């Protein structure tokens, strides 16, 4: 069974020494049918108190409390994860009917969320892409071809860029691709959720980056992973870290410090090392995220 060691380091520099800081991080892979978390730890520099809790979406959250003055905060999340082969072909076949969906818990993922509001621009894009209401085939197709409509440009947007701006400028990074895909899927009548994680590298030790994609729920209780940034369905090349309605539910690092000065954007590095031979040739490298 393929296993990987992941080291995800976040360096936050402050413009001047701050008295204390509070952060919540979601940086360890979730346990699921296709993933087993073998070990997980967090190292913090300077010394910090940490505690874990489980959030509404079942993601593990580490709270990080630093009580001494510091100018830099380094959070290193170490995980070891085993990845199982997929249980089913990631293909959407059937659509929902309203009665089946009405009291199904996945209906939570059809309602608009803070980062994925209901927009007219999404209806226009649905029409432009020929996506039919609850038509599985057309949704799979738009996942494969979204790159034709939206340019993938690293650095073109920031974590705060809104969906409308992305749709108007037609550029984005993986987070934006995921939000656009969520909006399309939801407006086409599918429950769809945001997934943060990593795409497995092709060499045995590789510098990777955070990635984001979506999952669409089928009436028979499966979640199908769709990666619109790569234009593929998710088979076994992805490691899932957290799920939620959109980016705001799964932000890898969310924090605040005493002394409100605008901070620099954090510097992030991810290294993924294969602990045993990977079973199949994984897809391309992860695309950049913020």
């Amino acid at each position: 069974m393929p296993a990987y060691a992941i080291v995800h380091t976040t360096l936050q520099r402050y413009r001047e020494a701050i008295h204390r800081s509070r952060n919540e991080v979601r940086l360890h892979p979730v346990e699921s049918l296709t993933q087993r978390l073998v070990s997980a730890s967090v190292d913090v520099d300077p010394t910090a108190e940490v505690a874990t809790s489980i959030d509404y979406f079942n993601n593990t959250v580490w709270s990080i409390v630093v009580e001494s003055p510091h100018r830099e905060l380094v959070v290193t999340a170490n995980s070891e994860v085993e990845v199982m082969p997929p249980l089913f072909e990631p293909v959407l076949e059937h659509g929902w009917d309203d009665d089946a969906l009405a009291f199904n818990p996945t209906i939570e993922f059809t309602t608009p969320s803070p980062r994925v509001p209901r927009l007219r621009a999404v209806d226009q894009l649905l029409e432009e892409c020929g996506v039919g209401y609850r038509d599985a085939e057309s949704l799979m197709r738009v996942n494969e071809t979204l790159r034709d409509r939206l340019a993938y440009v690293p650095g073109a947007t920031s974590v705060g860029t809104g969906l409308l701006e992305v749709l108007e400028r037609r550029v984005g990074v993986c987070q934006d691709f995921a939000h656009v895909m969520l909006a399309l899927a939801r407006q086409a009548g599918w429950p769809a959720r945001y997934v943060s994680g990593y795409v497995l590298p092709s060499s045995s030790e590789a510098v990777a980056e955070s990635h984001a994609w979506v999952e669409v729920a089928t009436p028979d209780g499966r979640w199908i992973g769709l990666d619109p940034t790569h234009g593929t369905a998710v088979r076994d090349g992805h490691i899932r870290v957290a799920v939620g309605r959109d980016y705001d539910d799964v932000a890898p690092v969310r924090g605040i410090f005493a002394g409100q000065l605008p901070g620099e954007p954090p510097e992030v590095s991810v290294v993924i090392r294969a602990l045993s031979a990977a079973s199949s040739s994984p897809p391309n490298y992860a695309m950049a995220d913020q």
Partner: protein
Amino acid sequence: MALTYRVENPAALGPATAPPLAAERRWFDEQGVNFGIVVGGDVVQRPIPFDPIPRKIPKQEWAALERGLLQRVLALDSFVRDIFDGQRILRAGRIPAAAVYGSPAFLRYASGPTARTPGQVCVAGIDLVRVDGTWMVLEDNLRVPSGVAYALAARRAMLELHRDETVEYGPRSVSEYPWRLRAALDHRAQGDGLVVVLSPGPYNAAYYEHRELARGMGCRLVRSYELIASHRGCWLQEGSRRHPVSAVYHRYSPEYLDPVGGAPESLIGVPALLGAWRSGNLALANAPSCGVADDKSLFPYVPSMIRYYLGETPILQQPPTIDLTDAAQRAHVLDAFDSHVFKPVDGSGGKGIVFGPQAADADREHVRTTALTRPATLVAQPVLEIDRLPCIAADGSIEERRCDLRPFVVMGDQPWVLPGGLTRVAPQRDSLLVNSSAGGGIKDTWIEA
């Protein structure tokens, strides 16, 4: 009973008489019983207008109200816990799941074991009106139920300015409110630390109330920058010393309590305050989970909650709420625009409410557009002709104005309803809104002993 202020013909009293309500205005001014009104972008604190003719409620009538209020608040508390636990009511199909999941007041980051314990609601303020003699619920306030200190001030004003009438009627006392609230906080407190009142500060409309409640409960009134929190607990920082805090009675809309978990732009919150609460090391009243139960889009389903959780028939009635996302209902309501009132689902203080019969053309157009493009953000209710009570007008004459009543329920060791509440008075004879932020005043509320 002849009341001294019931002046039939003020002109007959001659020029030597003080203008009507002068004594009341002076008393509220001297006592600093202020409510902030927004004037040109600034909050101006001014004495709340007071009308000295009390609302009287007979014993039997109050007993029924009291039962109805307790029933309602118990059901709302069960609902909050259920939504952060198994969501049984949704799976049972008793409430449309989309209404809960789509509510902006459903703060998922308040999730955790603490949100599943009884007593999420510590204080509830339930807005009631009388329509043709029948009490009806208009709104459940669980996030920041305010107004009780104004009700207490109204009683003190009556006892000082109209002592004889007050003593003669002998209404049930309201003075135990602060210790009842304090007992409910002590009951929730985690450890032996301080119990504090957390206020957003003097720019908040109800700052008077924050000060009064802190004073009445013998608690420190604190601002967010004085508190330090982590998952281990909460502390009051005083110089170089830190005093443990075991319970916080806050006056914040819950999304602003903690900038780490909540609104990141919130500068008024305390970082990691929710973490302290989630880990069971701090009591927060009301719990940040409560917003989901006072969202206007869930109001129509409170009777379903009462039936589902308590297995009882709802005692208090409420007007039908029309779901504008339903095309047929929306068309009907927009046709009969003049007999409906339109409310934004996430509003408070009467902000954004449009009354069909009095709507300006621009407001009509705005409501129509919103109902068509974003129907989930608005609800409609039939306009109710709510009962009026006699009030003293500016010229000293008696006029009838619309009034509501906000009783307060405190969920301590034993649930308790303050015998009285805040009677809010519309500012003029024809005003439809009674909200203090819309210039409304208050009256004392007398419950027959």
